C-alpha cells in the first residue's frame, strides 16, 4: 500500500558517552523524565503527526528496546497496514550482509522494507532527542518547497554552533552549504538530525553512496554533501521549540531537570501526548513524614523521605529520613532510610543502602559533575560516592 511518508528511526547507537547507563541497553531505551524512555518522544511525535509506519533500526544491545516497543500499542502504532517494525541487521544468502556501518548504510540495508510501502517521502529520525515536533508541518513545507531533502534546523548561539552540523542558507532560502562542527560558523542554523527525503532521490543517493568505497556511509558526512554537490534542492525547516540531545550524562541530567518546568516543554498537553509503555503499578504513596517539593513522581513509588527538585521513575522507594535532591532516579531505584542522593543519576533497580551518600553539590570547579550509578548496583551502607563518579554494574562499592 502506498504511503505518503513513513519514518525510519535510527536506534542502533551505543550511546557510549552515557557510560554505565548504556552498558547493557541501547541509548533510546534509557529511562527519561519519570514515565518515559528516550524513544517515547520520536515514537509519540510520529503517532501524533499521523505517521503510522515506523521502522526502528536496532543494533546495539536491542533486547530491552525490542520488548519495550512490542507491538507499538502504547503509541497507537499497532495498525494493520503499517505500524512499528524492529529492523535489526541481518544476513542474506551466501552470508552477504553485515552490521550497519553508518546511518546511511542502515537505511540502505532496509531498502526492501521501505519499498514495501512505496512511500513518496521518508522521514529519518534518531532515537536520542527530547522534543515535541509535528512532522506533518515539516512534510507540508517539504512538499511546498519541492525539496529533495528537508532538514530540521534549530537556531543556536554561534558558540554552540561549533558543536553542530551547520546549514548555511542562500538568498533563495535553500541550503547552500553544510559544515560539520565548523570552527568559524557562518550561520547559526544547526541540524537536528531530522530529515525528510523524497524517497526516489534518497534511494538513488543511497545506492550510489553504497558503491563508493571511500564513503563513511553517513547522512551528515556523505548523503547531504553529495546532494548539495549535485545541486539538489535542500530546504531548512526552522523549528523553534524545546529540543535537547541527551547523549551525555550532563545533558541527560539537564534535560531531566527541564521536565520540572512546564514552560520549557509541556508534557501535560492533551493535544500532544507523549506516550509510554506503562508498567501498571499501584498509585504512588506519600508517607506520613514525606516531603516532596518541585518534583515529579509516578506510579509504584513509595516516598517516606525528602524529595526535592528531582525526577522519579516508576516504583522508586525513598525511605524515611532519606534525602533526594536534584537527582534522577530510574525505575525501581531504592534510597534506604538516612541515605542522601544529590546531583546524581541512579540507574534501574540500584539500591543506595542506609546512610550512604551519592553525589555532591556543585563546588564551582571543573572537576565537579553529576554522579552516576548504573543499573542493578548496591551501594553499601555508609559509602560515599563523590561528584562526577561513574559506577558501573558489577562494581563493588
Amino acid at each position, binding site marked *: 500500500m502506498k504511503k505518503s511518508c513513513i519514518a525510519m528511526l535510527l536506534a542502533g547507537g551505543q550511546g557510549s558517552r552515557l557510560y554505565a547507563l548504556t552498558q547493557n541497553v541501547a541509548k533510546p531505551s534509557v529511562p527519561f523524565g519519570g514515565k518515559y524512555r528516550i524513544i517515547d518522544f520520536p515514537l509519540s511525535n510520529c503517532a501524533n503527526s499521523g505517521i503510522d509506519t515506523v521502522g526502528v533500526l536496532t543494533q546495539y544491545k536491542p533486547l530491552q528496546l525490542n520488548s519495550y516497543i512490542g507491538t507499538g500499542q502504547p503509541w497507537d502504532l499497532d495498525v494493520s497496514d503499517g505500524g512499528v517494525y524492529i529492523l535489526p541487521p541481518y544476513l542474506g544468502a551466501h552470508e552477504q550482509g553485515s552490521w550497519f556501518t553508518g546511518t546511511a548504510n542502515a537505511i540502505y540495508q532496509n531498502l526492501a522494507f521501505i519499498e514495501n510501502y512505496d512511500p513518496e517521502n521518508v522521514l529519518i529520525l534518531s532515537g536520542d532527542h527530547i522534543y515535541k515536533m509535528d512532522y506533518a508541518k515539516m512534510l507540508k513545507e517539504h512538499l511546498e518547497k519541492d525539496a529533495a531533502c528537508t532538514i530540521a534546523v534549530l537556531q543556536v548561539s554561534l558558540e554552540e554552533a561549533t558543536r553542530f552540523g551547520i546549514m548555511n542558507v542562500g538568498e533563495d532560502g535553500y541550503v547552500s552549504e553544510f559544515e560539520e562542527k565548523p570552527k568559524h560558523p557562518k550561520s547559526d542554523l544547526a541540524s537536528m538530525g531530522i530529515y525528510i527525503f523524497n524517497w526516489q532521490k534518497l534511494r538513488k543517493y543511497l545506492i550510489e553512496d553504497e558503491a563508493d568505497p571511500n564513503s563513511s556511509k553517513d547522512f551528515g558526512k556523505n548523503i547531504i554533501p553529495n546532494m548539495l554537490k549535485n545541486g539538489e534542492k535542500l530546504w531548512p525547516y526552522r523549528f523553534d521549540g524545546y529540543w535537547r540531545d541527551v547523549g551525555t550524562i550532563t545533558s541527560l541530567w539537564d534535560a531531566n531537570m527541564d521536565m520540572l518546568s512546564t514552560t520549557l516543554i509541556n508534557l501535560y498537553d492533551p493535544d500532544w501526548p507523549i506516550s509510554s509503555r506503562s508498567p*501498571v503499578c499501584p498509585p*504512588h504513596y506519600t508517607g506520613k513524614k514525606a516531603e516532596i517539593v518541585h518534583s515529579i513522581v509516578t506510579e509504584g513509588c513509595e516516598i517516606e523521605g525528602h524529595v526535592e527538585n528531582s525526577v522519579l521513575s516508576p516504583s522508586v522507594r525513598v525511605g524515611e529520613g532519606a534525602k533526594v535532591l536534584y537527582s534522577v532516579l530510574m525505575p525501581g531505584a531504592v534510597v534506604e532510610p538516612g541515605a542522601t542522593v544529590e546531583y546524581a543519576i541512579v540507574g534501574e533497580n540500584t539500591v543506595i543502602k542506609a546512610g550512604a551518600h551519592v553525589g555532591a553539590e556543585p563546588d564551582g570547579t571543573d572537576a565537579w559533575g553529576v554522579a552516576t550509578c548504573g543499573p542493578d548496583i548496591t551501594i553499601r551502607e555508609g559509602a560515599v560516592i563523590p561528584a562526577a563518579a561513574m559506577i558501573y554494574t558489577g562494581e563493588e562499592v
Partner: protein
Amino acid sequence: MRDYHGIIFAYHDEPALRDLTANRTAASLPFCSRYRLIDFALSSLRNAGILDVGVIMQRDYQSLLDHIGSSKAWDMSRKSGGLRMLPPFGLPQYHTGNYNGTIEALNAVATYIRRIPQKHVVLLLGNMAANIDLDAVIRQHEKAGTDATAICAGQGLESLHSNYILGEDGLVQYIDLFRTGEAKGIPSLEGYIFKKDKLLELMDVCQTRNLFRFHQDAITYFLNEAGGKMDVYVHPGYAKIIRSVDEYYEASRDVLTPAVRHELFPADRPVRTKIHEDVSTYYGEQAVSRNSLVGDNCIIEGEIEDCIVFSGCHIGVGAKLKGCILMRHCVVEPGARLEYVIADKAARFSENSVLIGSPKLPTVVPKDEHI
C-alpha cells in the same frame, strides 16, 4: 487452557452507594487512585491463567464497557475464548427491573453458561476489593475433589450473614444466612468454584421453583436437598465487598495502610487496569502530601493529607484537603478547603470554597458538579 471459566457479577446497582452509582454499577466504581473495582476480579482470574471470562451486566453499564474495552489490559482479547460482556438476553422479563438475585442473573445468560467448554466455573463479585490467589483456590478445590469450593474471608469481614459453618469432615455443614447476636462460622466472600454441571443443576432447580437467590435458595438446596459437598477456601489477605458509601470510604482509607496495600497489590499478582495516563504527577514548590495515594498526571500545588487522588486532578496553591477522595479530573482551586469529601469525576471546587463532611459520614459530590 485451564479447565476453568470465570464469571464476574457486575450487574449490582447498590442503592446504598447513592450518587456514586447514579451512572455506573458498583463493579465500575473507581477505586484507589487508578483502578475500578472490577479490576480485582479480572486480575485475579488473569493471574491464574483464566482468560475465558463472562461479565454479567444488566444496566448502567456504559462506564463498565468503556473501562473493559477490548479487555486487552487483562490479556482477555483472544482469538479463541477471551472475555465476553453479557447483558441480558433471552427472556424479555430480564430486560426490565433489577435482577432479583444472582441465580436470576445467571439464568438470564443461561445459554452462555451452557456453552462454557470448561468443566469448572469460577464465580466472583465485581464489586469486591480483594486480590485472590485463584491458583491456590484451584489447588485446594482439586485436592478436595468436591462439587464446589466457597471463597471465604480470613480477616476483618464482620459479616452478619452468609457465614459457613463447617462439619467435622472440614466441609460445609450449613450456611448461616442471618443471625442475631454474635456471628459464627466463616464469612463468605461470595466467590465460588462450581462444577459447571452442578451450577446448571442449581440454576434449573431454582428456575423451576421460581427462586432467584444464590445463598438463600441455591446454596441451601445444594447443601440440604442435593447433598452437595462444598469445601471452604479461606482467603488470607484483605477483602471487602463494597455495597455502600461507608464501605467504599472505609476500603479506600484501608488502602492507605501499607499492609493492606501490599495484600491488595502483591508484586507477583499485579492488578491490571485500563491505562489512561501518560505523564507523571508534579508536586509544586508549596506542595505537601502526607499519607496519601496519588495517581499520575496530577498537579499538586496545595496540601493533602490522608487523601486518595485519582489521575488528572489539579490541586491549587493554598488548597487544603484532608481525608478526601478525588476521582479523575477533579479541580480544587487555590485556597479551597475540603475535609472528608468524596468528589466524583470532574467535580470542581471554586477558589476559597469550603466543604466539610465527617469521617463517619463523608460528603459525596456528584460527577461534574461545580461547588
